[in-house]
């Protein structure tokens, strides 16, 4: 066996490193990167990709601080008096509202609003090919709009030059976050994130509960001061006894106008299934006299619109922050089929010819079904693993050992791989060979044969 031949594989062909059995040390040198680390938009990630925020979240601490401080003062200074003179339920209600407000705020801030991942180079090339029918060699930017019919109404889809795709309807590109966001409402600096399809319900519950909270605190503080001044004291004296109440009063007074106004506005938007973006631009207002341009997305029933917007199914996050970057993404797709054969293959042409594409594909798919809890390392590292797995149990769905670097002798464990998200298998198989995009069925596998350890990840994903 001419093992030395294995070393002669052209590194360019494999895109990363020689095709030898990888040692642990080599594996450690090329740490697999998660997708959030290479995310092209201007977002910040925490907790290894579990939490997403816009780049400028400067006002979120202020929002949080105001809410916490006001509630803190309320519980510390007003509640004792009111519990004594009125009822115990006042701090209880206040507490419940406070919890709702903070939870909604944090969920709005930390949830992926519905960011659309940018188009892959293949997709972008395909779109440009479709548009540029003249076949001229000079590069022309694609036309900016495409018209489609939605519910018998003409809607213009714009081409996003940053994300290199035609934006789906109701999608807009946020310049602050540098992402296209589905059902884009607005970028809220108070919340420190865009408000879009996936977090609109959290945002709405935040402003509604905040309206209730501020009104509640406002009312309680007024009651408190009134009760104090009724007990034979003057108003000024009452205020001097409880100065914190004035602070709360001022904060609540100024915020109530804006919060109540915003709640009312968004209630109107929800009822008519509009976004702030559309309302401001007047996309569906009947400006053009004869033409009836109503909202094509509205269900023409207030209740249905509300239910759909607020209680509709929760779509998944499309950007897959915690997945691993397939190492072959660095290779331009165009060069794949032109990769020079490694030198030693000249000796094996006969063997090559005997294998057909179909067998290859089928074998890849079969071997992909053997993968369980495969952790994606760098490129060729999984290749020894592929063969290991196939050798071990082509017919069975035996779980594979942890990735290359971990040799065949390791017991088949799921344990090392629990934290990985659903894309890890696709990435690992992609890493085998850029040309073998056929590895891509494995993501489907990864969803169906997810190891138990992934369950928390799924739950976590919902947080975003």
């Amino acid at each position: 066996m001419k093992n030395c031949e294995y070393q002669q594989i052209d590194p360019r062909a494999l895109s990363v490193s020689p095709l030898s059995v990888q040692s642990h040390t080599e594996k450690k040198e090329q740490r697999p990167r998660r997708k959030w680390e290479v995310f092209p938009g201007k977002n910040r990630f925490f907790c290894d990709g579990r939490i997403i925020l816009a780049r400028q979240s400067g006002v979120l601490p202020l929002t949080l601080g105001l809410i916490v401080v006001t509630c803190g003062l309320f519980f510390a200074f007003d509640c004792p008096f009111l519990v004594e003179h009125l009822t115990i339920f006042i701090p209880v209600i206040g507490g419940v509202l406070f919890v709702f407000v903070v939870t909604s705020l944090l969920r709005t801030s930390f949830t992926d609003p519905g960011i659309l991942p940018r188009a892959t180079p293949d997709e972008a090339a395909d779109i440009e090919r479709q548009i540029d029918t003249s076949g001229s060699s000079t590069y022309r930017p694609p036309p900016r709009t495409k018209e489609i019919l939605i519910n018998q109404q003409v809607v213009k889809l714009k081409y996003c030059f940053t994300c290199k795709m035609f934006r789906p309807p109701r999608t807009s590109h946020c310049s602050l976050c540098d992402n296209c966001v589905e059902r884009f409402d607005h970028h809220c600096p108070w919340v420190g994130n865009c408000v879009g399809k996936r977090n609109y319900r959290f945002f709405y519950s935040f402003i509604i509960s905040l309206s209730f909270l501020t009104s509640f605190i406002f009312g309680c503080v007024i009651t408190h001061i009134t009760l104090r001044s009724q007990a034979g004291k003057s108003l000024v004296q009452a205020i001097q006894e409880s100065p914190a109440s004035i602070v709360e009063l001022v904060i609540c007074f100024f915020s109530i106008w804006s919060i109540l106004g915003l709640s009312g506005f968004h209630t109107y938007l929800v009822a008519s299934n509009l976004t702030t973006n559309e309302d401001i631009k007047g996309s569906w207002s009947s400006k053009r006299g004869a033409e009836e341009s109503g909202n094509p997305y509205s269900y023409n029933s207030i209740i249905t619109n509300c239910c759909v917007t607020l209680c509709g199914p929760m779509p998944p996050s499309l950007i897959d922050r915690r997945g691993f970057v397939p190492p072959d993404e660095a290779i331009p797709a165009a060069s794949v089929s032109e990769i020079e054969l490694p030198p030693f293959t000249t000796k094996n042409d006969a063997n090559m010819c005997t294998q057909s594409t179909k067998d290859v594909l089928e074998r890849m798919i079969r071997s992909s079904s053997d993968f369980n809890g495969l952790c994606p390392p760098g490129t060729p590292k999984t290749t020894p693993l592929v063969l290991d797995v196939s050798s071990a149990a082509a017919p069975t769905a035996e779980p594979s050992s942890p990735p290359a670097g971990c040799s065949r002798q390791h017991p088949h464990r799921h344990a090392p791989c629990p934290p990985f998200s659903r894309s890890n298998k696709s990435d690992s198989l992609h890493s085998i060979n850029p040309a073998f995009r056929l590895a891509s069925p494995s993501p489907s596998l990864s969803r169906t044969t997810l190891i138990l350890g992934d369950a928390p990840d799924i739950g976590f994903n919902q947080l975003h």
Partner: protein
Amino acid sequence: MQGLVPTATDGNMATEFHNLQELRHSASLANKVFIQRDYSEGTTCKFQTKFPSELESRIERTLFEDTVKTLNNYYAEAEKIGGQSYLEGCLACATAYLIFLCMETRYEKVLKKIAKYIQEQNEKIYAPRGLLITDPIERGMRVIEISIYEDRGSSGSSSGSSSVSGSTAR
């Protein structure tokens, strides 16, 4: 070269592995077709069932349309607004959305079914024809990507890759 006999009976997986490495050239990616979204009914997830011309020689139209229609039905099921989704939404709201930490949403469940279906379709129908479907979720639900592989090994055609030095020895 023993290392490259592409038989499963060989038992030496080093051989099979290297076959896979080199056989990428006999199974090289020729083209990719993108099935775009169909927005005629709004923003719900639905893909166009128009049969792309690049696939005309590779697969029967009915099979392709069946696949896309089934996928569309799955997505419609995931996004269906009705009693169950309202219940899920209200329950989630009542628990301050903490229930999502424990429970999988209906959408996620359907996505798993879709993934299984796509893999099954790939194994049974598409891979034997040298095609491969990528799950739309991997592409941001924008397109169904179908990769077309050129079968250079069995047909002996060079499929445009003249840099494959191995092919000269055939």
